[in-house]
């Protein structure tokens, strides 16, 4: 009975959200520009929700609490890097948007193709972005699986439930495009806010009187010494060195995801982007509440190890609260997986459709481009689902590679807004060098060297190779033609 109530609420919420998204795009004519970047007319409020929607994924919802539960203070890095990313975006996003509007870009790789006048560089960026995105979509599925399992009290086969929810959202993305995803984010953010307030304020108040009380309890617990501060030691995994280098790395990488570039293009104008960058840090404070939920769970349901830590506060809700509360909180988490997954699938599909298919002569005209992108959305969905069904255990590692991978685009985007730019060969060589460092480190299972995140080492290798190569292969005089 409890399982039926909780799962019923989740199903109702998912259906209602899809309905809202479809309502948002009623009467909108779907050409490629409308489908992929919302016709470049997304206003301040909807853009805020779209950008925020990409931050608050199930991984944040469950993962940030899981980190606070399983690792303690190193989790604070999550608060820092988003803020750093907004500061960078305050300067970078309006410049990228202006160029994208003037030159009519639809995808992140379009920026590389046009600014460096190389179709090959565009295709390289598209392929790398695609490879990094599929595991990210898959990760959302793992989050949804955890939530459905808890809401179903372990009696439901999550495979079936996840398959239904996921293909509904894939179909939704197929129909509604980016503007639909932004509208779905309205429902998602409202519900996530309720869920986070419940988990971060109501739970600690229930068990310890207040969040401060929960933190007192963590400090009193002798099994977790120094849980609320980062150091010592000063080097090694999760040390202060790791936190600072990871904040720098992920702060630079944040807007490099193809779906984030698409969100930048979709803005109505540059001022909208600047205002969003100014106010988005306030949104980060929600994460503080998620940490409180993780700390509370650490003292109420201790002993969860490894990936099980991600279930921390949901288990409290399951154990101590009525089924309808569990249903609402789990529904918030499910939307936090499905809505970002829509944006990610759309981005993954559009970069292959545009920068690999259309740029190489397949399906070039507007209508077939929209059709190809739509079909690719379904292909991405099937790939991600297959990936999830086969190899769901090693995904967190894959996501970290993904983040480190897309960060390699950062030098190319920053230098790309300048008037004098390096050659495509130099930018491409830098990206390849960064990826080689990442792959070598990943194969050897090295995530940090003396506390320095290997992604940052890869980024430095990227910049060094880019600098050397731009001296060796200077940029030819611009002809304005694209090879």
């Amino acid at each position, binding site marked *: 009975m409890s399982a039926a109530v909780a799962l019923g609420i989740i199903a109702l919420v998912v259906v209602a959200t899809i309905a809202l998204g479809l309502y948002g795009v009623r009467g909108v004519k779907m050409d490629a520009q409308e489908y992929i970047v919302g016709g470049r007319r997304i206003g301040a409020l909807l853009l805020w929700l779209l950008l925020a929607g990409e931050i608050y994924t199930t991984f944040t919802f469950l993962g940030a609490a899981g980190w606070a539960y399983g690792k303690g203070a190193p989790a604070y890095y999550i608060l*820092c890097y988003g803020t750093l990313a907004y*500061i960078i975006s305050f300067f970078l996003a309006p410049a990228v948007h202006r160029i994208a509007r003037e030159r009519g870009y639809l995808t992140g790789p379009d920026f590389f193709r046009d600014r460096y006048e190389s179709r090959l560089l565009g295709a390289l960026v598209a392929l790398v972005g695609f490879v990094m995105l599929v595991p990210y979509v898959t990760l959302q599925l793992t989050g949804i699986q955890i939530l459905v399992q808890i809401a179903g009290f372990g009696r439901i086969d999550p495979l079936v439930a996840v398959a239904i929810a996921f293909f509904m959202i894939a179909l939704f993305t197929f129909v509604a495009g980016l503007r639909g995803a932004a509208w779905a984010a309205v429902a998602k953010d409202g519900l996530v806010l309720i869920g986070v307030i419940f988990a971060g304020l109501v739970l600690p108040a229930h068990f310890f009187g207040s969040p*401060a009380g929960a933190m*007192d309890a963590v400090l009193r617990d002798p099994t977790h010494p120094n849980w*609320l501060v980062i150091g010592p030691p000063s080097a090694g995994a999760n040390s202060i060195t790791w936190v600072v280098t990871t904040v720098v790395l992920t702060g630079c990488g944040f807007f490099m995801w193809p779906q984030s570039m698409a969100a930048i293009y979709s803005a109505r104008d540059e001022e909208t982007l600047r205002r969003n*960058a100014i106010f988005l*840090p306030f949104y980060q404070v929600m994460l503080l509440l998620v940490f409180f939920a993780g700390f509370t769970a650490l003292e109420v349901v201790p002993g969860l190890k490894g990936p099980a830590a991600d279930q921390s506060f949901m288990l409290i809700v399951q154990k101590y609260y009525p089924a309808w509360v569990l249903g609402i909180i789990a529904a918030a988490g499910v939307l936090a997986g499905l809505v970002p997954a829509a944006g990610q699938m759309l981005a993954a599909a559009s970069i292959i459709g545009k920068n690999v298919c259309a740029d190489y002569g397949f399906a070039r005209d507007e209508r077939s481009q929209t059709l190809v992108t739509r079909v690719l959305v379904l292909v991405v969905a099937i790939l991600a689902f297959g990936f999830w069904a086969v190899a769901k255990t090693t995904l967190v590692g894959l996501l970290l590679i993904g983040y480190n991978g897309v960060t390699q685009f950062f030098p190319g985007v920053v230098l790309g807004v300048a008037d004098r730019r390096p050659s495509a060969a130099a930018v491409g060589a830098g990206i390849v060098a960064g990826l080689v460092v990442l792959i070598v480190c990943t194969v050897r299972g090295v995530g940090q060297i003396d506390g320095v995140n290997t992604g940052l080492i890869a980024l430095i290798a990227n910049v060094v190779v880019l600098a050397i190569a731009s001296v060796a292969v200077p940029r030819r005089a611009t002809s304005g033609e694209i090879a």
Partner: protein
Amino acid sequence: MAGRPNATALVCAAIPVLALTVGVIPADRLEPRIFGMPFVLAWIVLWVLLTPAFLSAAHRSMRG
């Protein structure tokens, strides 16, 4: 309409960047606790909340 980034804007933006990166190193302490939060967490939250003020200042300087 805002123009290009100028020196004032870049300095305004650099302050929270430094506070949230290298600034976390000296701030990594438990005491004094603020609203029950360890000092390092309170430091980070404070700078996250101050960032909009610094970016607004940068924005104003760019509008000239």
